[in-house]
């Protein structure tokens, strides 16, 4: 579907960014999936044919950024998308490519996940714009998101350095009306000029750095006049709210709700690096109280304070209220969690009335009805999820081994194994591939008397994203390390994106790489098992691996249940049911092992009959419960033509 140009449509913030990139004339879009950024590329995939844009997922964020830079080197425009954690991966390239002189345009879109729904930190990406000294744009609505994407590509090309667009989850995933514009042309035939300026050579760095700082001042001058920055409110009021990005809409809403429209002005900043110094001084200089609303860190707050300190005569005496003094704080404290209207209300309310404002409480009957709608449900692997079998096997093996072994993991659906659904097995999870790197160090710790077995788990996508260097490191150092790669064929957690481990049939002809081949190529022992098909074999393999030295790669291969079940023919699913006569239920000898321990959403326990029951609507027919039932009371029948 191609949105009809020059129309107003309702769009997700992320769709709007995608549209902006398209209108901005990109030839290439890439990135690595991660909430809340994934929909940008997903949307561009849909438009890629009609608009002749090359769209692809890269193995990780730095590769994505480097690939996109090739377009900018050659006079074309490109967009790269990632979440905040991904920017750390890409940062090495970002902080050097900003020293370059790009003939094309390069827009780096970073979606932050404050108060994380699906992230292992809530870092504020904006700092990287300052580190790399590149322009930073913060949209406050889907419309702005689209328009800033167009503008970001344009200034990137005009100034010859990358531009960063920073969204936050509520913007990325919120909807709003967007007026579409025309799609720009892609530019001339791409060509790499072999005489273009060289960068990166140490003796050229200072020169290029100086040039970059000069550019920063040119960009600042442009931002002084930018329509993305603006003041709302009466002249002559002494209280000013300075807000950036989406926080500006929270600020406006709070001012309206508290009926402070005639007493408070709001300076909205959309270009937050480099800060528009004059625009700030113009407004701040007239106020005696300045309150900051932004998400997550006091980035603008500190920038404004520096501007004021450097221009004391114009700024005058100001009472600053923000995160550093703790005045602007959500329920978890200043600078923690999401910014929202409640936090803005609380701050502005206290400013004018020391008794804190209470939002109108929701009527109790409404709350009760809402509670009724909630299904009590634990955070759990999906029905048929291969991770359930994998962690069942891993837990069993480590318990049998009995030397207080543990798992270190990283980011993916399987991270849930830190909770009950994965039997609380993962004891450390930080960033992509971190468990595999940790395992290298735990191996070396043995010299110091460390004697606990360690198993590092990583997903298929993670293996290619960040696991390969750790594996090479382990092999190179003759480590004793066990790596279990949970290969479910897609990048499931972020929405089933394809990755190098995805079968070609699913990825439409991309070449499939086998993890075991990569591992063997690097000199590790590698075996492939399907824990869903034979959970005991997986237990054996893990036990054997932790009992013998060397580097072991165990590839647990079974496709993501949710992804493949969606595509499969329902009637081909095996039928699984419980023989009520044989089932022991909650008696000694079982005590609801299947329903209580496996926590598969398809297994129920009927307290009335005292036996287990399989919800055949939900069951995927994976057969794990069949293997673990102590009474062989769960039966599985394969349909005639299909196998699971």
């Amino acid at each position, binding site marked *: 579907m191609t949105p009809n140009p020059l129309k107003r449509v309702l769009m997700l913030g992320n769709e709007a960014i995608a549209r902006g990139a398209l209108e901005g004339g990109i030839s290439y879009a890439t990135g690595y999936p991660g909430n809340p950024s994934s929909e940008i590329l997903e949307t561009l995939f849909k438009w890629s044919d009609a608009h002749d844009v090359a769209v692809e997922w890269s193995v990780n964020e730095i590769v994505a950024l480097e690939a996109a830079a090739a377009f900018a080197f050659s006079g074309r425009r490109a967009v790269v998308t990632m979440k905040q954690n991904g920017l750390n991966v890409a940062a090495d390239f970002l902080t050097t490519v900003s020293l370059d002189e790009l003939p094309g345009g390069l827009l780096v879109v970073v979606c932050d996940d404050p108060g994380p729904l699906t992230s292992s930190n809530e870092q504020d990406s904006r700092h990287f714009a300052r580190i790399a000294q590149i322009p930073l744009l913060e949209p406050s609505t889907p419309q702005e998101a689209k328009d800033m994407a167009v503008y970001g590509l344009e200034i990137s090309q005009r100034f010859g350095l990358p531009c960063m667009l920073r969204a936050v989850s509520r913007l990325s995933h919120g909807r709003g009306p967007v007026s579409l514009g025309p799609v720009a042309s892609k530019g001339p035939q791409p060509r790499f000029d072999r005489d273009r300026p060289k960068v990166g050579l140490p003796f050229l760095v200072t020169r290029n750095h100086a040039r970059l700082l000069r550019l920063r001042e040119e960009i600042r001058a442009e931002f002084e006049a930018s329509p993305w920055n603006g003041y709302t409110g009466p002249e002559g009021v002494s209280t000013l709210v300075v807000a950036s990005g989406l926080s500006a809409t929270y600020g406006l809403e709070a001012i309206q709700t508290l009926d402070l429209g005639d007493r408070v002005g709001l300076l909205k900043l959309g270009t937050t690096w480099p800060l528009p110094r004059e625009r700030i001084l113009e407004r701040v200089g007239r106020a005696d109280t300045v309150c900051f609303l932004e998400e997550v860190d006091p980035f603008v707050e500190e920038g404004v304070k520096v501007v004021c300190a450097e221009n004391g005569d114009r700024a005058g005496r100001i009472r600053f209220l923000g995160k550093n003094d703790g005045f602007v704080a959500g329920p978890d404290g200043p600078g923690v969690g999401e910014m929202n209207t409640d936090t803005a209300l609380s701050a502005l309310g206290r400013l004018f009335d020391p008794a804190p404002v209470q939002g109108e409480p929701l009527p109790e009957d409404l709350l009760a009805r809402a509670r009724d709608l909630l299904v009590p449900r634990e955070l759990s692997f999906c029905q048929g999820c291969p991770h359930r079998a994998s962690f069942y096997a891993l*837990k*069993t093996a480590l*318990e*049998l*081994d*009995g030397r207080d072994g543990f798992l270190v993991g990283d980011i993916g659906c399987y991270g849930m194994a830190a909770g009950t659904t994965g*039997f609380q097995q993962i004891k450390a999870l930080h960033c992509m591939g971190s468990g595999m790197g940790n395992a290298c160090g735990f191996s070396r710790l043995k010299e110091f008397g460390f004697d606990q077995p360690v198993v590092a788990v990583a997903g298929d996508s993670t293996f290619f994203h960040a696991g390969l260097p750790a594996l090479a490191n382990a092999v190179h150092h003759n480590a004793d390390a066990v790596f279990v790669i949970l290969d479910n064929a897609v990048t499931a957690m972020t929405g089933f994106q394809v990755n190098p481990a995805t079968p070609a049939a699913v990825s439409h002809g991309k070449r499939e790489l086998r993890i075991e081949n990569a591992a063997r190529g690097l000199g590790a022992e590698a075996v492939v098992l399907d824990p869903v098909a034979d959970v005991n074999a997986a237990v054996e393999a893990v*036990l054997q691996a932790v009992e013998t030295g060397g580097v072991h790669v165990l590839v647990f291969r079974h496709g993501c249940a949710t992804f493949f079940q969606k595509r499969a023919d329902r009637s081909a699913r095996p039928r699984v049911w419980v023989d009520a006569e044989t089932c022991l239920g*909650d*008696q*000694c*000898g*079982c*005590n609801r*092992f299947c329903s209580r*321990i496996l926590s598969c959403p398809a297994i129920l326990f009927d307290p009335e009959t005292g036996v287990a029951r399989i919800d055949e609507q939900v069951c995927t027919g994976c057969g794990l419960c069949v293997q*673990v039932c*102590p009474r062989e009371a769960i039966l599985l029948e394969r349909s005639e033509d299909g196998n699971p």
Partner: protein
Amino acid sequence: MGIKGSRELVQNVLQAGMCIGCGACVELCPYFRHYKGRTLQVFPCDLESGRCFAFCPKIEVDLDALSRRLRGCAYEGLDLGVYRSIRAARAGAALPKASFQGGGTVSALMAFALGSGVTDAAVLTDREGAWPLPRIVTDAQDVLACASSKFTAAPTLQALNRAVRLGHQRLGMVGTPCQVTAAAQMKGGLASQEDFRDPVALTVGLFCNWALDPRALNAFLGERVDLDRVTGMDIPPPPAEVLVVRLGEESREISLQEVRPLIPETCRLCPDLTSEWADLSVGMFEGRPGWNTLIVRTDRGGDLVRAAEEAGYLELEPMPEENTAHLAEAGRTKKERAFRTALRENAVNRENGCSVLRLPAEVVDRLT
């Protein structure tokens, strides 16, 4: 105190270092497993009362109740338990020779019981290197393959539970006193199981002062010999003071001094030298190589011995008075030590919480 569940078992036995790894709680359910000498609960179970607790010989062992149920009398703390007779015994000519530990009495009894239909399968303990390996056997050939003592604790009763699940109804079992105690507690079943039938038709107990921790022994031996080559072990009678490890034709002697630290703590609380709850108990005959000491405790034990002798499976001789006295003294020494240790560790007749042992207070008083 009564029969509690696995939470109490895990806390008071497994986590308290009291588990001997007999296997009585294993293969009853998906929760308990035994792996390389260690019993563990893989997943938590929240039942208030269970067979694991009921069967375990290391928690709430009510010696008086056992004595009344199995022997029809109160528990008096007799040196060698209640018995009918003590004889010298060895395997008869009807049994092919094998690498028996002593006279092969145990192997002869088990082979004869299987052959004559007294039992339909036997639960024995084979070896795999220096690891004990429980087995369910159904013929004399396999009985002989399991001959000789493995001087480690063994999860033999795991195989018993498996055999019951497989449908065997007249099982024979050979075990150390703790295993025999567990098997005796199994005869009680669980109150909740109305249809309970005792599937064990014959228990032959071994004498035992202590067993070694299999994990500790493997680690210890692994540093001294090639574990895959271990074919047998022997503890020759005093004053030898050595553990002999047989490696095919060769053998290595290791001072008992070095081996004693591998005895699990839990053995020090064990009051039973001669498997008092078995039908028949068998140990070495000190001073007479190639012979065993045989204690007959029950009618069915006595019947089997008589029939086995008639069939040429067993040779019997009277037991000299002074040997019996010597054995009794050893039995008393072990009891006194166990009760003293149990008292010191608040592990006997506790009012609150779980005890290891329960028995009439006057017996404790008399023996400590």
